[in-house]
């Protein structure tokens, strides 16, 4: 398929001609000391504003534009009916401080979503408060800390496999914990290394299963025993949940804490970077520590329960990203038990089929079937002077969003590919054929890619050397890029 992205030489809002702003009399309204005389935001016509953003949207690429096989990001189709539901006035025009008696609908939806997520994950209780996956990790580690302290223990180390998502490291670091990295063996956690590292200082071991190579850690129960024998907790990073719906659950695998990425597994749109939602589920023995308020139900009325003496408190304002929670709830209702299992079945089949189609095109280290994603390597193309970044950029010329690149670091020149269940075989075949073509193309053509996007390859080094993050800064710094 040929693809040409739109390009407009679209001026910045600030570069558009603006008529003189009308003056606003602030006498008596704002104390003289604080009164502002001018605000340098252009006054534009509504049509010019809409054209500006319509043009910019045409220089962007979403799941609705084309295949988006970003590994560990689960870029599945976002159903349109969920968008409509999130736009209901009973969602958008309800204030979070309203009296409980006036928000029974919202509380019921949250309560039912908590139950559904707990069942899917094999957990006993769920908080919907965290705003994103990393925020869920932060919350989960706070819960683990509160649990150990409640038992009179101060534990300071978080164990992480070397394939873990970067956020795991950062969440642990943000809370002041020391990170101990556990090496992999054959693409799985090295049990011996884990056994040697787990001790009375271990707060938790964080793991995603399947891991970021797409490999299922089949010795997960042994791993859980090692962690629990050391008195530590086992944390499930839910980024890869799309692989296991209805096939196994973190609870079944003996995890104590889990975060969900509703913007991955449960199809809420990524919004160009957010908002997401990162609920956290726990086993019963951790329930008392969950953030308040907890949504309680007495059989007739829903209530916000703040009377939680052991609670860690709050991790954000109010109750969570409600408009996203509505979408995820609708998605779960739509699919039901069988439908959710079919989601993972198709996601895993698609990943393995695509991997199979890439035999002889790119190396895929480690043998055996994968779950929802796999990691290929372009290291074999080094002799042709082609690197992973070049392949990624060249894929854009054919209307594909590139896979996740250079992660996990364990694999040299990595391309992490997650097709999701939404894609048809036709799309997967076309993607495989395109990759097969690219690896044989003239290396100069590939290195010069992309050729068909709004702009050519972007100079990221210049941006970082001379960071200009606003129009205001650009006025004083006169950057070379302007």
């Amino acid at each position, binding site marked *: 398929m040929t693809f040409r992205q739109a390009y407009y030489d679209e001026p910045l809002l600030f570069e558009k001609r603006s008529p003189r702003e009308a003056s606003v009399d602030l006498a008596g309204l704002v104390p003289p000391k604080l009164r*502002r005389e001018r605000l340098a935001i252009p006054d534009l016509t509504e049509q010019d504003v809409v054209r500006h953003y319509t043009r910019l949207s045409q220089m962007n690429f979403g*799941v609705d534009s084309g295949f988006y096989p970003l590994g560990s990001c689960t870029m599945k189709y976002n159903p349109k009916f969920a968008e409509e539901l999130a736009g209901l006035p009973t969602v958008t025009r309800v204030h979070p401080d309203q009296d409980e008696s006036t928000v029974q609908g919202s509380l019921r939806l949250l309560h039912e979503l908590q139950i559904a997520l707990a069942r*899917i994950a094999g957990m006993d209780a769920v908080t919907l408060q965290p705003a994103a996956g*990393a925020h869920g990790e932060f919350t989960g580690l706070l819960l683990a800390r509160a649990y150990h302290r409640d038992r009179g223990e101060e534990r300071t180390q978080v164990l992480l496999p070397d394939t873990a998502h970067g956020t795991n490291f950062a969440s642990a670091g943000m809370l002041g914990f020391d990170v101990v990295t556990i090496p992999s063996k054959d693409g799985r956690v090295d049990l011996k290394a884990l056994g040697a590292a787990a001790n009375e200082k271990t707060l938790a071991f964080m793991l995603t299963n399947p891991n970021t190579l797409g490999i299922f850690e*089949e010795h997960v129960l042994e791993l859980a025993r090692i962690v629990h024998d050391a008195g530590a907790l086992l944390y499930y990073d839910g980024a890869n949940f799309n692989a296991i719906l209805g096939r196994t659950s973190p609870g079944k695998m003996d995890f104590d804490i889990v975060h969900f990425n509703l913007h991955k597994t449960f199809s809420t749109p*990524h919004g160009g970077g*957010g908002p997401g939602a990162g609920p956290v589920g726990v086993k019963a023995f951790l329930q008392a520590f969950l953030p308040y308020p907890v949504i309680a139900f007495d059989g007739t009325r829903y209530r916000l329960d703040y009377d939680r003496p052991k609670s860690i408190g709050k991790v954000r304002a109010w109750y969570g990203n409600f408009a996203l929670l509505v979408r995820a709830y609708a998605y779960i209702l739509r699919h039901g038990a069988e439908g959710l299992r079919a989601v993972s079945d198709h996601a895993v089949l698609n990943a393995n089929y695509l991997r199979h189609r890439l035999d002889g095109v790119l190396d895929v280290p480690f043998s055996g079937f994968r779950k929802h994603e796999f990691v290929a390597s372009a290291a074999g193309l080094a002799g042709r002077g082609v690197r992973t970044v070049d392949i990624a950029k060249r894929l854009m010329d054919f209307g594909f969003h590139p896979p996740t690149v250079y992660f996990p670091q364990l694999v040299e020149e990595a391309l992490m590919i997650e097709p999701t269940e939404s894609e048809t075989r036709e799309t997967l075949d076309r993607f495989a054929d395109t990759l097969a073509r690219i690896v044989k193309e003239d290396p100069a053509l590939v290195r010069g890619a992309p050729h068909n996007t709004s702009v050519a390859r972007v100079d990221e080094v210049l941006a970082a050397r001379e960071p200009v993050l*606003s129009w*205001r800064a650009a006025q004083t710094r006169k950057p070379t890029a302007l």
Partner: protein
Amino acid sequence: MDSDADEMLRALGLRSVDDLFADIPATVRLDGLDLPEGLSEQEVVARVTSILSANRSMDAMPTFLGGGVYDHYVPATVRAITSRSEFYTAYTPYQAELSQGILQSLWEYQSLICELVGMDAANTSMYDASTALGEAALMAKRIHGGRVFLIPRAIRWNRKSVLANYAIGSGLEIREIDYDRTTGMLDLDTLRDAVTPDVCGVYVENPTFFGRFEEELDEVRAIATDAVFVVGVNPIAQAIVRPPGDLGADIVIGEGQALGNPVNFGGPLLGIFACRQEHVRKMPGRVIGLTKDAHGHRAFCMTLQTREQHIRREKAMSNICTNEALLAVGSAVYMATLGSTGLRRLAAENVCRARDLAAAIDGIDGLEAPMFPGAHFNEFTVRARGGYERVHEGLLARGVHGGLPLKRQLPEFADAALYATTERHRPEDVQRLVAALREAVA
């Protein structure tokens, strides 16, 4: 499974999709989920709509709540643009060449925020104002090194709770500065005593929690000369209030929901975060920078990623990656739609409406509003001499939702509430409130 699936399985040499899960040990295998069967789209829409119909939205009930999120009118342009699926179904723009649209939109968002608050740099968002406060405290510690962070005692309690959690790993001690009992602004004498060399940062809000303008930001700066000065703002008020950057702020945070985003039962929200150029490399969160492409055209890309989790791991400035980008785009559309004139008129109108509503409430026997003198933005305190709880219930019984009861926020305000008003309230909403208040107090 459909016929394509069968062929794909055959290509893999498999008979059943179960074979792909054979590596899951029997001991942890699940035989399906304990959930009801799926529904048709039509049934789901009916079910969710019906559940939510038990809510009383602000359409159905005049509501005078604020306290961090505000019910401003959202022009149709915002939804029209943020509903474009090129934006809302995109991922974080790691691949700049394919994502210039959202990159420019977010760079412009950064620029608009910087203009509002007088800073050089802004990130593309934090989760909300409370997590922005937590991140600001950590950033103050990174810049200054001191172990104490000062905040007003009179801020929303949920912000304090979130801040306490964000501070846990840093060794930061949070100390509270009381408000001046006569003015409602920060008590400068208490602040003077509290500012010691180990204070890394001071946080102040304008408008204050009580809705009145904080008029002494420059004095706060002068007292805490050595500390990182963090100012929390209402972005709409900023259209008519001097930017914190002019008053010596190092970091500005705020709740950006008011800029064209619905209240959505409290989420998603938009954490504003901006700082001076010299602090840019210590700032948390995603930022978009200006650069060029290989042909020399202007272009945008994510930048300073070496501060972030995927590169710096446990030494990252923050763990944040997924943020509130679409709300940032929405608020940029909002600001562009209103323009300088629209934003300033709107802000002025909010001040007038709050002044008039407070006067009307103050005229009711048994009620006092506002409790503090001076100009307020769009929010103010109301005291009920006979206790507030009864008033709250009385209003609800009459189909009106009053302000936020302050009992949980500050014990000395057990008989008070925080009322907010915006351009959204129609004259008849205000009349209904005033009539209902009269009856509820009587």
